[in-house]
Structures are given as C-alpha cells and as structure tokens.
C-alpha cells in the first residue's frame, strides 16, 4: 500500500515538474520571440505541446509558433499551427489592429465558419383555437355561452442547422410538443339559484418536424435571424379531462371525472407553417439561441366519420359537448444550446 502511495506521489511530482518546466519553456520562447531568436522557439515548444501544457498555454504556444513560422518564411507550418490552435479553441479569433497583421492575414485565409450546428431545445407555447366550422347548436344547453380558452404548455427537442450561405441557413427541428386548450360551458342547467358549469381541458401530445430557412446576420457574438418554414405534426395522443361545478346559494361542489381519449376523433397528421424571430448568442465556444414565433396548423383537428352527429357521451351522458371543427395558432418561445462543428482548412 505504501509503495503504491509513493509511486502515486512520484507521478504527481513528475507531472507537476513537467508542467512548471513547460511553463518556463513558454516564457523562454516568448522572450526568444521578442529578442528575435526565432529559430530556437519550435524546439522549446514541441515536446510540451504534446504533453505538459495546459489548454491556455497551448493556445499561447500555438499562437507564438504560428507567428514564428510566419516570420521565418515557413507559411505552411504557420498555417498548420494555427489550425491546431483553432481545433483547441474553436472560437479563437485574430483581430485587426490588435493581433500582428501577418497573423490576421493568415487567419483570414482559413475557413473558420462552422459547418453545422447540433442543438437541444426547450421552450413553452401558448395554444389558441380558431373554429373553422361550428356544429354546436341551441339543442346543447348553454350553447350560447360556450368558449375556448388558450393554455400554456411546453416543448422539447433537438435541431440541426446547416449554414448554407453566409446569411442564409437551413434548419431541421424535431420537437415533442404538448398543445393544450380549455373548453367551457356555463349555465347549462339553471334551476332556481343553481348553476352548473362544465370545463374540459384538452391535452394533445405530438411530434413536430419543422423545416426552416433562416435569414441571419452572421455576427460573431450575436446572430439575429428571421426563420420561416413548414411544420408537420404527428399526434401521439389526445385526451380530455372534464370538470363539473355545481354552484348554488347553499352548495359549491366540484366533480372530477376520469380522462377520456379523443384519439378516434382527431386527425393523426397535420401540416402548418411557422415563423420565428430570434438571435443566437455566443456562450464560450458554443452558441445559445432564443426565439419567439408562431406556428399555424392548417388542417382541422377534428376527424369524424359522420360530421353531423358528433355529440359526445360525457358527464351524465347529457350531450353537453359538441366538438366543433377547429385548427390552432401556437405562440412559442424557445431556448436552445447549439454546438458548432468545424472543418478548419
């Protein structure tokens, strides 16, 4: 046990010694650069670049090596060093008027644009219902006072972004989205002083596949964009939860009835269009993204074989709900984290 401990201590010491040795080598190399002793620099850095430097030191060392090679007429090796630097720190930038011009000039010649991004999305939505054809009639008690309520829900998913041109990118997105809305009828049965109120909450779980074009201002820190495209939706499940409230002067009673499935009365596929406004922003070497927008599904969601007779058996089989034809407009806000992938050359 003691031997093992001694060996571990020895290894730690050797590693620390190598590290401090490399730190000194880097300082020496910088000093050599300032005093013009350029040919001595590669020899001092090569071993430590393989093992011994921290990430920050490696960045410094590759930058120094690039400048050194540029100043001793070895542009090919300079480019190689700069690409190695970029692979370590993908968001490294040489800046005009700050970095030496030869470094900036070489940096400009290297393709530093991301080839694609892969990202994860999370967000919320606000679902609004538009009735396309109304089937509710006066035979339904309280039909004169029915209303659809918009509800908030969430979505999660992933995306793939392909920068096609500098300001025009393509994007594919697969998200799991829950769309919710409420349906409410009042005064259905109004006896003396007694009011009954029926509320239905609709939950629709599905997967959206969005294909978009993105017009983007390709700045370094901020990339504001407008995104537009088409959406396809596969509905996995659609159920209703219903509540009944009876209110009178003396009683105030709530009744919750178990969920019931609406899958057989809903279309499995739907299509729509969407438009979003947002911006990507830099988070270290990656990009975050925030966007707001709206998706409009074009087809009516209700799907009945007999379009006319669509009264449902609900609480007390009293036929209080007549399902209208409707589609929806969803307002969304999404946040995503995207990792860029490069091919420096």
């Amino acid at each position, binding site marked *: 046990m003691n031997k093992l401990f001694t060996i571990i201590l020895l290894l730690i010491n050797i590693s620390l010694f190598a590290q401090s040795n490399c730190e000194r080598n880097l300082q020496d190399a910088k000093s050599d650069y300032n*005093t*013009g002793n*350029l040919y001595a620099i590669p020899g001092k850095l090569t071993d430590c670049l393989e093992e011994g430097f921290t990430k920050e030191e490696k960045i410094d060392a590759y930058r120094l090596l690039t400048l050194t090679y*540029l100043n001793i007429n070895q542009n090919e090796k300079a480019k190689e060093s700069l690409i190695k630097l970029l692979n370590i720190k993908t968001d490294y930038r040489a800046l005009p008027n700050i970095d030496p011009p*030869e470094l900036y*000039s070489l940096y400009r010649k290297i393709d530093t644009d991301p080839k694609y991004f892969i990202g994860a999305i999370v967000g919320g939505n606000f679902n609004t219902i538009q009735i396309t054809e109304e089937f509710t009639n006066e035979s339904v008690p309280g039909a004169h006072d029915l209303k659809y309520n918009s509800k908030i829900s969430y979505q999660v998913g992933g995306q793939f972004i392909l920068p096609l041109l500098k300001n025009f990118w393509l994007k594919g997105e697969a998200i799991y989205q829950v769309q919710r809305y409420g349906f409410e009828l009042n005064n259905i049965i109004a006896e003396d002083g007694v009011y009954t109120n029926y509320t239905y909450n609709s939950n629709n779980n599905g997967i959206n596949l969005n294909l978009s074009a993105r017009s983007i201002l390709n700045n370094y820190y901020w990339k504001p964009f407008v995104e537009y495209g088409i959406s396809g939706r596969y509905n996995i499940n659609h159920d209703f939860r219903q509540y009944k409230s009876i209110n009178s002067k003396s009683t105030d009673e709530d009744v919750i009835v178990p969920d019931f499935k609406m899958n057989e009365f809903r279309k499995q596929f739907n299509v729509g269009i969407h438009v979003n406004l947002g911006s990507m922003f830099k988070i270290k070497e990656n990009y975050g993204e925030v966007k707001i927008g709206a998706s409009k599904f074009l087809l009516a969601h209700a799907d009945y074989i007999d379009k006319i007779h669509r009264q449902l058996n609900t609480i007390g089989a009293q036929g209080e709900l007549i399902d209208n034809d409707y589609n929806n407009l969803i307002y969304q806000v999404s946040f995503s984290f995207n990792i860029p992938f490069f091919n420096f050359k």
Partner: protein
Amino acid sequence: MNKFSHLNKSSDFNPFPGLRPFGVDESYLYFGREGQSDEVLSILEKNRFVNILGSSGTGKSSLMFSGVIPTLYGGFIDKAGNNWEIITAKPGLDPIKNLAIGFKNHLEANNRERKFSEVESLINNNLFEAILKKSTKGIAELYQLNQHLKGKNLLIYLDQFEEIFRFRKLGELYHLNESLAYINLILQAVEQTETPIYIALSMRSDFLGDCEQFPELTNKINDSHYLIPQMNRDQKKLVITGPVAVGEGQISNRLVQRLLNDMGDRPDQLPVLQHALMRTWNYWINSSNENTNDEIIDFIHYEAIGGVNEALSRHADEAFYELDETQKIICEKIFKAITEKRTEGDGIRRPTPLHAIAQIVDEEESTIIPIIDKFRIKGRALLTPRENFALNSNSVIDISHEALMRVWYRLRNWVQEESDSAQTYLRLATAAGNYQQGNGSLWRPPDLQLAVEWRNKTKPTLKWALQYDNAFEAVITFLERSENAYKKELETKELLQKKRLRRSKLIAYILGSAAVLSIILLFFAYNQSKIAERQKVIAEENSLEAERSAKKAQDNQIIAEQQKTEANRAARRANLEKQNAENNAFIAEQQTDTAKAANARAQQSLKLAEAAQLESDRLNENLAKNNRQLIFEQEVSEGYRMRNLAQKLSVKSQQEIEDKELKAIQAIYGYTFNEEYAGYDSDNDIYNGLFYAVKALDPKYYDAFRSNSVDVRSLQFVKNKYLYTTGTSGRINSWEVENKNSTKSMVIFDKEGVFIKSIYVDENNQKLVALTDGPDFYVINVGDRIRTTEIYTLPKGYAFDVVFHNKTDFLISSSDSIIYQFKDGRLNPQLKINSRIYDMELLNNNQLVTGNNRGEIEIWNIKEKTLHQKLNEANNKIIHSIAVGNNMIATGDNSGLVTVYPLNKDNKSQTTINLKGTDGEIMTDLTFNEAKNQVISSSTKGTIRLWNLKNVEEFPIFINGPGSWVNAIALLNESYIFAGCKDQIFRLYPIDSEILADALKSLMPRDITREEWDRYIGNDEVPFNPIFEKDVLVDKL
C-alpha cells in the same frame, strides 16, 4: 452637403468638450451613461445625499452636470417637483469660504437685473461665511436668508471633494478645524428636515480610505454612494459616435475601432479620448473648409493630431513653445507648484492662488499671468479659470484635468522632478533636525553632492519649501555647513595630495637626472677608456721604438767609440780616414731613414686618433637615435593612454543616466581624444557614447523626419529622393526626401485585408513590386503620371524576394523553388533550384547570387541557366540576406553570422571571411556602404551593425537604438541609414561618429568645468583644455 453649409456657418462649434467636463447645457452631447443619472437620483431622493465615486477621468463631474442636473430639472424626483436651484462649489484651500462664495455667486446670478457693487458683493461674501462658520446649521440658515430660494429645492453640488483630505494633510490646526466644521455643515444640512436641501459630492475613489477620519461622513457615504461603472465597448463607441452625429458629421467605422483600441481599457482615458476627438473634429472642420470637399472623419484627421497617445501632449507643447526661453523656465515652476505626486505613479492637482504661485516661483504676478494665459486661451483650456475670467491675485490656478499629468510627458517629468525635489528637501529637513538634536552628522557625498545639485538646480524659495516642511532655514544652513565642512576636508586632502605629489615629483626628477647623468658619464668613461687603451697601445709601441732607437744609439755609440779608436788608429793610418768618413756618412743616412720612420709612425698615431673620433661620432649618433626612439615610444605610449582614456570616457558616458549634460561632456571628450590620438575611427564605444548622449538630449533625434510614426516592415530608397515604406496596416507610403526631411508623402496603396510583407522598387523609380503573404503580388507603376496597379499571381506557392533585371523586368523567387522572370506582364520560369531562395542579388546583367534555406551561396548564369560557382557547401544554416558591393558578396544567416566573399575579376571567390560580433539572431537585411567601405546589417535582435572592411578583424559598431526587430535598412547617403523597425517607427541613424559629434555639440548646453576635468580626465596628466569656443555657448545661454 448640408453638413458643410452648417459647418461653414458655425465652425466654432465642437461637440467634444476636451479636458473639461460637460456643462449643464451640453446634455444633448452627453452619451454613454444613459440610465445612470436615474440611479444617482434614486439615491439622492431617498437620502437627500449622494456621493458619486470613481477614479480620475471616469466622468464624475460630467455625469453630474450633463446627466443628473438636467434630469433633476425635468422633475425626476416626484416628491420634490422640478423647481430646483443648484449651487456648485469646490472645497479648495478654504472650503467654507468657497461654499459661501458659491452662495454669493448664485445670489448674484439670480438677480441679474440688479447690479451688485463690489462692496455689496464683499459684504454678502463675508456675511455668508460668518453664517456658515457660526453654527453647524449654517447651510439651512443661509437657505432661509436667501429669499430667492424660498419654496424651491436646493441642490448643493460639491465637486472634487477629495481636496478636503489633501489640505488636511498639510496638518495645520486651522485646516483641521475647518475641515471638521465643513463636514459637520454638510451632515447637518442633510439631517435637518425643515428646508429642502440636497447635497451631492463627487470624489475620487482612491480617497475613499481617507473618509475614515470622519466616522459620520463614512456612515453617510456607506448609505448613499454611487460608484460610476466602467463603460463597456459599446458605450464607449456611443461616446464617440453620438456627438459626431449631433454635429452632423460622419466618422469612419475603422477610426471608431482604432480609437477604441488606442484608448484601451483604462477608465481614466476618457478625458484623453475626449480631447483627441475635440482636436480631430477641429482638424476635420478646418481641412474640410479648406478643401470644400465632402469627406468623413478618418485616419488622416486622427493621425494628423497625433492620436489618443500624442494629441494632448502636442496640444500642451504648442502652448509651451509659444513661450520664450525665460518664460519656459517659469512655466515649469508654475506647473510644479500646482501639481503634486500623491503615491507612486499617481499625480494629483494642487489648485493654488496666483499670489501664492508668485511667491513659490519667486516672480512678479504680472510676469506669471501671460504664461498662464497661454494655457487657457480659447480652444486650449488646459488650465482653469477659463479664458473669460480675468486673473487677479486671488484667482485659483488649477489644471483642467489630472489626465494632463499622465499624458503630457513634459508635465509628467516635472511632477516626477517636483516629487524628487520634495523628497530631497524632506530628507534634508529630517537630517537637519537630527543634526540639531545631536543625533546625526553633516552630509558627505554622494548625498551631499545630490543635495547641492538639487539646491543649485531648483533654487528653492521659502514659500515653496513651506508647502512641505517649515524647516527651510535649518535645511539651508545644514546644507551650507555640510558643504563647507566637505570643502575643507577636500582642501586638506588636496593639500596633502599635492605635497605628496610634489615630493614624488622631486624624487622622480632627481632619480631621472641621476639616471641621465649616469648614462652620459658611462658613455664618456667608456669613450675615455677606449682612447686611453689606444693611447697606451701607441705609447707602448713608441716605447718599444724608443728602446730600439736607444739600443741603436748605444750601438752607434759603441761604433763611434770603435770609430774613435779606429780614428786614433787612423791617425796613424791616414789613408784609412777617408773610408771611415764614408762609413760615418752612410750611418748618418741610416739615422735619417730611422727618423723618417719615426715620423711615419707619428702620422699613423694621428690617423688612429681620427678613427677614434669617428667611432665617438658614431656612438653619439646611436645615442641620438635611441633618444628619438625613446620619444617615439613615449608618444606611442601617450597615444595608448589617451585612446584608453577616450574609451573610458565613452563607456562612462553610456553608464551615466541621471546627468544628461555630464553624459554629453564625457561622450564628446571621448570622441575628441580618440580623434586627436588617432584612435580607431569605427570604435564601438566612441560611437555609442555619442549615440546615447545625443539621444539623451534629444530623444526624437533618430526618428526619421521628426514626424509622426509610421509602421514599417520593408522600405526602399531610390534616386536619392524617393522613400517607400510598408507596414502593419498593409498600406504603402511614398515619401519625397530632401535634406533628411520629407517634403511630401502620400499613400500609394491601401487595400483592406491585403498584407504586404515586402516591397521592391527599380533604380529608376518606375515600378514598385509589393509581395503579399500569398501567391498574389502587385506591380504599381510609380513612375507614371497616373499611377496604375496590377495584380499578378504566382502559379504555385508564395514569393520571397524580387530583384530588378533589365530596368523594369524582374526576377522573383518563389516557395516552389523556382525563380521566375517577369517580363511584359508575364511570368516565366527562369531557374529551377532545389531549395528556397530567401534573398538574391544581381552581380551583373548575367549573374545572380542566391542564398537558400540550406545555407548555400551560389552564383548563377541567368542566360545559360547554369551554375557559375557554388561558394560553400550545404550546412544547417539558412541564408536570410545577401548584399553585393565593393567586389564582394556579403551574406547574413539565421545564426547571426555575416560572411564576406571577396571576388576576383572572374567573379569567383576563393576566400571566406567571417565577420566578428554575432549573437545568434536572424540577419534580416544587409547593405554595402561603398563610399566608406562598410558593410551594414540589421537583425531581429533590434541591432544595426557596421563593419569597417578596412579592418575585418575589428568588432563592428553596434547600434542598439531600435530596441525591437529591425526588418529592413536602406542607405540615405554615405552617412545616414534608414531603419524600419517592428515597433512601427522608422528611424534615421548617422553612421559616422563625426556627424554624431557635430550634432551633440549643437545640443550641448555647456562645456566641461574644471572640476569635472579634474575628476574625469585628470589635470596632472592632461592640462585643462575645454574644446568649445566661448561664443558657441554664449548663444545658447
């Protein structure tokens, strides 16, 4: 078009205030701090008190004047309405009095229809001050006394509240009590509820710690402070673009970015930015009116005023240069009087009344006022009060903003000097105190030397000294005593030394004379002994002869006796007498012969004596020759000693940091001795002594044209007139150079995103080739009246070098290891070489020298496309630069080695000379100075080296001035060289010590003193002999 009609009408309008804060009526120009006024007002509404905190230059006063007060007038504080009166004051030296003046000014401003006499004004002032001093409720009582305030809300804004802490530090009891009373007045005014009085303070956040002296104030500040946040980049951008838009101007986006970058992240740069923008706007307006040309505000306007870094400094310098020499000296003293250094690197204002300044600088007020006026005329406003207030004795003089202390290099130095001066004074005061108490001793060098220099240089006055310590008399006495004591010590030492020296000299003379006498006597004795020896030999010979003669005479006597006997006998034999007589005659003849022989021997002795004389002459001649040799050797030895002294002086000069005049003196005498005693004319120490001395006296002497800086990576100078430079921005500039000055400059190429790494121009100034870091290169027809630019692309790779061939055709070396020929707009492969050629030069029309990345130097025949000679084998070096001249090839490599290959008449080289003085860096450029037989190199280590090819064994002259990489060099003429440097400045260096010496002489304010001569040169060895004619220096004085 509207813009110009508008501007022509109101060219006085400038949307940027410069150093001063925005005024109440300028809120429409105030951008970047939107929403912050509301936050301040929320605090004010809640607590009736707010303290706005921020570091210097964050815009506290502007936020108040252009943000808070206008919002207040708009009725933001619901419960208070929009009926407001504002009184502003600064604490200054006398906070309560200044607050009273604030009330008085407000009263007079609100009763414009009534003219207040001077007496009334004075009475009001004293009355208000008395009320404020009478009780802590003074402010509320003043509110009630002033009828015009009735029914209105009163906001008292106390700007630069930190002054109260500064004056407290002076330590006088009066100030301590005054500060406390002042703060109690403020706190009481906030606490009371009878009158609607609100108080706002603005204070530098670095003084926050000083508030703890007043616990109640600290509590109040804790409840009601607002710390001004630092602006982000977008807000700063708005600061620039907002007022420009209001002024109906347009500013280029790249200038906005440049301004933001130049400004950096320091919050205290805002006033500097505002000032630069004010100057840029003025320049733009003037240039637009002149040209009547629709243009937006861009680099050209910004760079013309010197940019953020230079604008304020230049603006202040303009005022400074308008002063004559005497006024400049007074000006320095004035600024030193109104500024001080608080902590390391942090200067603060010291607003001071005019009469006090006059006492500090020891001048009449009437002398000082015109100097101050220069800094507060319209459009300058570097000092307050503003130009529309006439100055009198009590006017408080202050700088407009602390930023001036930070940015104006001259003032920064003054502040530092003043701080050093004060430190010296305080040290002296402590030492004088200790000495008086018997705890310390008098000062000796080096402290004494520094203190005496300080006294002679600053000439401190009593008033000046009282700012720091009241021990002025004690300090001066202490210093004088120290000086006298040291002088006496020196004199005693000198006396002793002189005695010792005299004794040594006497002994040396005696010994020397004895030695010379001994030599003479020795020679004489030797000579005499030789003569004596010879005379002895002659005497011995004569003695032998005499003996022989005596013997013969004895023989003759015997014969005569025999003859007598015989004659006696002959008497008897008469017939025999005749025969005897004949025998005697014969003997007599023989004796005559003997006498003749003796005479001959005497003659011989004479000849021997003559020979001895000749020998003596010869020895004398040898002695004279030896004497001449001795004198020559003495002269050689003197030469060595003086050249050594010259070098020592030059090295000392380089080491001297503090005293620029002494530095210059040491350098010029080093140079003079080296010249007089035939020292090496390319001596590195002598050159650098002069070089740094010139730089110390004129820091911008080497910056080309003494103009604004430009970025330089490559430069070319052709036809003794046209200089082309390119640099970090990718632009190519053309300069017309005459007499070391640029008479005209223009941008001849500027393409965004194109990085030009090097440029080449043919010798007739017809075509310019610009190489990029990619396969593209540009050909600009600079010789045409209408300049055209063509772009060409190498088939593969990128270019390294260009050499012109047949006037405007050229060869271009590429990274694909091919040298292409460019002719008539077409590229054709000319030479295929299995290596990369980083530099190449033409030897003649048909021969090309190349240096490659394997270290090989090769000479090629261009027409035959064959190798003429390979000068060396491949090694692990890389040739970066080549030059041809003086029948030689010079190459520079990555190890810093410069090698010279002398060529024979067939352009072949058999020998290699490695020049000395290399240090492992890359040799970026090489050139020959054929007129002076020099080869000159530049390196990434920031040096330029000059080898004298007459003596290749010697080390070169090193010019270390550039400090950063020198990318390129080009000869202006045989005496000057341009250097393009990585720090974006191109410089012009003299490459001849004589030029530097002349320049230094023209800059030197004085000659060497006798004391300096004794100390650094030595009067015993070299007599005191200053080099300057007196009248040269009289002009300077």
